[in-house]
């Protein structure tokens, strides 16, 4: 018999509506899975057993009354620990927020609750979402469910790992430079970054405000669309949220790719991309062509500067956003003797980890008098060049495709001592963040060591419908159904 923890959201939802099992059964299944896998994975920072049980019982009561809110009712979903959850510890994986209990819910959390979802708990991340491996957590790293000697990617590595391992049916992450798509690729699941402004950021602990966007992790493209549908839409509490119609994704799936124009990005298929990743992506692109798409090579000449521009823009914005952690209103306060200013400087030194300090310093420098235009101003002009490249590309093609990550999951510790090597992990994902466009990673296969490979599909702003149409085709063409080693029902508690 299939373990309930391995069902897709669509299958679990259908079973709930038919009364084959209850939401409490689903919660028990993922909780049991977590009790087996967490010793090796450490995907969760906090399991909200009590809150999740109450939500599952409420969902079951609603089903009994014939009251069905939507496809997420009764489905266990995990949240990255940089999203505020009222009364449930939220740390952003930082010591500076150890034990903090937000007095309110993020808008995405409120919307998932309104949709009847069962929120299982909070997942691990690189501190303040700064990293590409989930090794920068103050509470210990997360491991990859396909091979625990390897990283799950990051920064939303905990969310990716829970969905891959079966300790949640879906999860939310945040993506500033690839932090949803890259871990999704490395953990063999679907991960999607929406158009900037499609999903409210109210209650998301800010990293780089002009780039951050919340999006879903899931095991299938259809499940991804269901979660996005529940969280998308205008929010008066986020001044950058788009006040307009949201994409209708249900109609996008299973429509094929006939006569769609697909551009494969030359610069993201060159040097630095692992040959096995490149080969898998080429194969899938050719299969799209065989399925009726028109496949062309497209150049984004500025994309090779995108990484450098990003590592000025994101730290600059982070240095401003993280100024709020000063030991006054919340979080860690140093016990050092002295003035309030001494207290602040020591609270920050004691509370922030090395990567966060590195980026705050870098951003402070890039914004400081005499350097502002040379670094930050120039990076913003490069951002315009990247956007112009995309705009020109989308005059010729409907979507762009590339690898999601230049390599499969690297070993724990392999890049920890070399910030620049770590930064390169996001080379394929960063251009979409700079442009504000949506992008999705779909798993297409594994390399010769059994680690997953992700295929990235990018679309113009608010082009989610056509992007999901192609993603759905890629999923069915690749036929990738293999599951992570740790998601196997044979895995037993050590």
């Amino acid at each position, binding site marked *: 018999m299939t373990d309930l923890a391995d069902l897709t959201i669509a299958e679990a939802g259908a079973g709930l509506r038919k009364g084959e099992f209850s939401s409490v059964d689903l919660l028990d299944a993922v909780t049991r899975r977590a009790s087996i896998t967490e010793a090796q994975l450490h995907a969760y920072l906090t399991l909200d057993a009590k809150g999740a049980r109450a939500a599952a019982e409420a969902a079951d009561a609603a089903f009994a009354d014939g009251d069905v809110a939507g496809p997420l009712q009764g489905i266990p979903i995990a949240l990255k620990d940089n999203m505020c959850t009222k009364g449930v510890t939220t740390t952003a994986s930082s010591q500076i927020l150890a034990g903090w209990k937000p*007095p309110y819910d993020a808008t995405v959390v409120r919307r998932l609750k309104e949709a009847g979802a069962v929120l299982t708990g909070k997942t691990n991340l690189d501190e303040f979402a700064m990293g590409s491996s989930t090794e920068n957590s103050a509470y210990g790293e997360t491991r990859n469910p396909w091979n625990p000697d390897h990283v799950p990617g990051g920064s939303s590595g905990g969310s990716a790992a829970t969905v891959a391992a079966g300790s949640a049916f879906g999860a939310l992450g945040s993506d500033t430079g690839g932090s949803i798509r890259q871990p999704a690729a490395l953990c063999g699941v679907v991960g999607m970054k929406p158009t900037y402004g499609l999903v409210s950021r109210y209650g998301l602990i800010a990293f780089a405000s002009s780039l951050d966007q919340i999006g879903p992790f899931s095991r299938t493209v259809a499940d991804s669309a269901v979660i996005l549908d529940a969280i998308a839409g205008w929010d008066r509490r986020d001044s950058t949220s788009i006040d307009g119609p949201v994409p209708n994704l249900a109609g996008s799936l299973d429509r094929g790719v006939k006569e769609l124009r697909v551009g494969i990005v030359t610069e993201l298929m060159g040097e630095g991309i692992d040959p096995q990743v490149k080969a898998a992506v080429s194969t899938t692109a050719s299969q799209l062509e065989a399925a009726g798409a028109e496949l062309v090579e497209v150049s984004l000449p500025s994309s090779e500067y995108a990484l450098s521009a990003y590592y000025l823009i994101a730290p600059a914005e982070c240095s401003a956003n993280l100024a709020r952690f000063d030991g006054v209103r919340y979080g860690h306060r140093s016990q050092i003797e002295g003035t309030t200013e001494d207290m602040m400087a020591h609270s920050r030194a004691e509370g922030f980890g090395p990567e966060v300090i590195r980026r705050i*310093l870098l951003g402070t420098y890039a914004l400081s008098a005499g350097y502002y235009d040379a670094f930050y*101003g120039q*990076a913003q*002009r490069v951002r315009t060049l990247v956007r112009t490249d995309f705009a020109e590309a989308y005059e010729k093609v409907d979507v762009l495709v590339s690898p999601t990550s230049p390599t499969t999951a690297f070993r724990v510790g392999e890049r920890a001592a070399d910030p*620049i090597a770590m930064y390169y992990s996001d080379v394929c994902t960063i251009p979409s963040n700079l442009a504000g466009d949506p992008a999705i990673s779909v798993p297409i296969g594994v390399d010769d060591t059994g680690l997953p490979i992700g295929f990235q599909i990018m679309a113009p702003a608010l082009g989610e419908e056509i992007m999901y149409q192609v993603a759905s085709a890629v999923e069915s063409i690749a036929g990738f159904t293999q599951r992570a080693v740790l998601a196997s029902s044979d895995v037993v508690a050590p």
Partner: protein
Amino acid sequence: MPVEIDIAKVANLARIALTEEELTRYGSQLEDILVHAERVQGLPTEGVEPTSHPLPLVNGFRPDETDECLDRDSFLSQAPDSSDGQFRVPRILG
């Protein structure tokens, strides 16, 4: 072009109290990263407008009416120190 950074000044601007050893380490790491970042400086961008944000942002207005808000105690309960309904901090002057 090698970059030289007055790292003590930067750390002070960022209000992070670092030891001499930490200053040296972060200073050299920043210089390495900035050499990489300098790639963008060689690009011809004359006449290119900077993008600060992917959306054309306009300010949102709402009627100036009293609305629900979070209660003071829920915030103060999470503060490191408070008294009389206010956040409490060490002395301000040295």
